[in-house]
């Protein structure tokens, strides 16, 4: 019966294409919007992803997410180092400082201050220069996207020349020199990222009593990280998160306190509804058009179970094709924009699964209407002209 089902499906080319186009569009919209959402949410904790070495992040208890900086005393580093199970603990500065461009305008930048001795927490990939050059007076490493974009020299003819090693700039009215170009994961705010040493960063920053943003901790081998977090919290009265916990805290903050989920959910729901409306309606019409033939098959001995399997097969085949095309188009679009534009796009297998389930629901709900119609069909309909 599968043979007949597929021939019936592919035979009505107009309706077949209509259903597939509807499902492709739904799958594309659901996958693409979800992937953009996932990409943007990933950017919220991109700094945590880039700083891969520490196991634990110690922060002020009031901190709600990674960009919510509540400075602590520098002595916290020493207190953390004293906790049993800590292999090393280093200070990390993170702040938003104004950088003066060559044309006199200012650009807000994320400035990361690394431990002067170890330079722990540096950029994941250097494109030019060396990390150790940060120890030169006023030395900074700028991320490539920022160097070629927001921090680039604006020429009189309007063209932009990327920052390069040796270029000078002012960070919060302090002189600095570019000693390296690095590659980082784009941040949520899409501001340029500048790395320097902890001592330089705190000298660039406005004068204030407390400047330490984080204490990053490496646990000794074999340590239970959750247990170590509890010991650090007990010893310092600060909050200690494992990297994944801190990512989740940040993710949940953006999820809860921004309108992003609603916006994207609306777009995904729209894709779903479009799929149901176009594909569901067309599939139902396709079944109605073939009702006489389903009746004929029924009269000739096809049982309800066989007809049900025929309709399900038809629904699953168009679903599979529509899903494949939609996901393929979304992936192609993602590959096209990723790296070339500022747009975030991340397509983990979970999203492919969610999209598949959504398309499956569209197909099954469309098929359910058709199945109901065919199951209730009296085979005697075949004798009506």
């Amino acid at each position, binding site marked *: 019966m599968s043979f007949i089902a597929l021939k*019936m499906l592919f*035979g009505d080319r107009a309706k077949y294409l209509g259903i597939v186009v509807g499902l492709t569009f739904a799958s594309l919209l659901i996958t693409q919007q979800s992937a953009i959402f996932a990409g943007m949410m990933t950017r919220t904790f991109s700094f945590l992803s880039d700083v891969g070495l520490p196991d634990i992040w110690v922060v002020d208890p009031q901190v709600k997410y990674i960009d919510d900086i509540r400075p602590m005393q520098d002595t916290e580093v020493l207190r953390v180092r004293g906790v049993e199970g800590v292999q090393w603990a280093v200070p990390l500065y993170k702040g938003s400082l104004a950088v003066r461009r060559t044309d006199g305008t200012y650009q807000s930048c994320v400035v990361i201050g690394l431990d002067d001795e170890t330079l722990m927490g540096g950029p994941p990939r250097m494109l030019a220069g060396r990390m150790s050059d940060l120890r030169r007076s006023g030395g900074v490493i700028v991320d490539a996207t920022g160097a070629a974009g927001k921090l680039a020299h604006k020429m009189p003819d309007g063209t932009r020349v990327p920052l390069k090693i040796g270029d000078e700039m002012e960070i919060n009215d302090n002189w600095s020199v570019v000693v390296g170009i690095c590659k980082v994961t784009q941040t949520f705010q899409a501001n340029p990222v500048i790395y320097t040493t902890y001592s330089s960063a705190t000298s660039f920053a406005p004068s204030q009593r407390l400047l330490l943003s984080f204490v990053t901790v490496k646990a000794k081998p074999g340590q239970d990280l959750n247990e170590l977090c509890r010991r650090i919290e007990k010893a310092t009265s600060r909050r200690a998160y494992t990297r994944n916990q801190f990512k989740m805290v940040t993710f949940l903050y953006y999820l809860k306190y921004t309108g992003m989920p609603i916006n994207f959910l609306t777009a995904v729901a729209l894709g779903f509804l479009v799929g149901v409306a176009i594909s569901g309606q067309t599939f139902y019409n396709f079944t109605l058009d073939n009702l006489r033939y389903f009746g004929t098959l029924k009269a000739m*001995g096809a049982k309800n179970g066989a007809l049900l399997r025929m309709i399900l097969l038809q629904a699953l085949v168009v679903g599979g094709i529509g899903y494949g095309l939609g996901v393929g188009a979304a992936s192609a679009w993602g590959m096209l924009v990723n790296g070339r534009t500022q747009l975030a796009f991340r397509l983990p297998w979970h999203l492919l699964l969610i999209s598949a389930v959504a398309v499956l629901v569209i197909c099954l709900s469309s098929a359910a209407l058709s199945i109901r119609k065919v199951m209730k069909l009296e085979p005697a309909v075949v004798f009506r*002209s």
Partner: protein
Amino acid sequence: MNAIFPENVVETEIAVRCSGLTKTFGSGNSAVKALRGVDMEVRNGEFLMLVGPSGCGKTTLISVIAGVLRRDGGVCSVFDEDYNHLTEDETTSFRGSNIGFVFQAFNLIPSLTTAENVATPLIINGMKPRAAVGRARDILVQVGFDDRMMNSLPTDLSGGQQQRVAIARALVHHPRLIVCDEPTSALDGETGHKVMELLRKLGRAENRALIVVTHDSRIFEFADRIAEMEDGRITRVVDGASHVASMNEN
């Protein structure tokens, strides 16, 4: 009912036996009594025509006999099986194995080729499509189709050709009973005549019973017996030849 069996009909076992058959559509004031106590027998190898004016209950009667419609009352057995004693699935299986259908509007699936349409009953009965289409091609040769026509879609065929395909489809799985609903009403006189010749030749082979519903008097001559229906009852049963003779006299 007076059962008249012509000499050329081999009197073997009864294929269809109906007694006091009733069927009502709707209820209350809008109820329509389509069958009001039909008594009828059809023997194996017999070609019976059901004739009568529109709305007299012919199609309802063959629907009940073919097991596509449940009766309200009376008795109806086909090859000694009473549909009321079978489940829905058993009835469907019984139809698939024992009954061939020829419809007024042909009901050929437009996206299947001629051979694939003919193969449909075999596929329904579990045969692999390739083998079924092979068997279908054999029977299509018998109804005068060549390779090109076998690979055509129904829309590329004339009405007469489509009805020949429908006949081949009704015969391909060697059913014991064939029911035809107005098989010539969509055809011109000459084509209808050819279709009936084919139906009689192939349909009655294998000691098969044939029931044809029609109001096309031009094809009465093909019947062994003609059962006249009126207002939900069979009013008269005559042999085909004498019915035609009396028509000619009138």
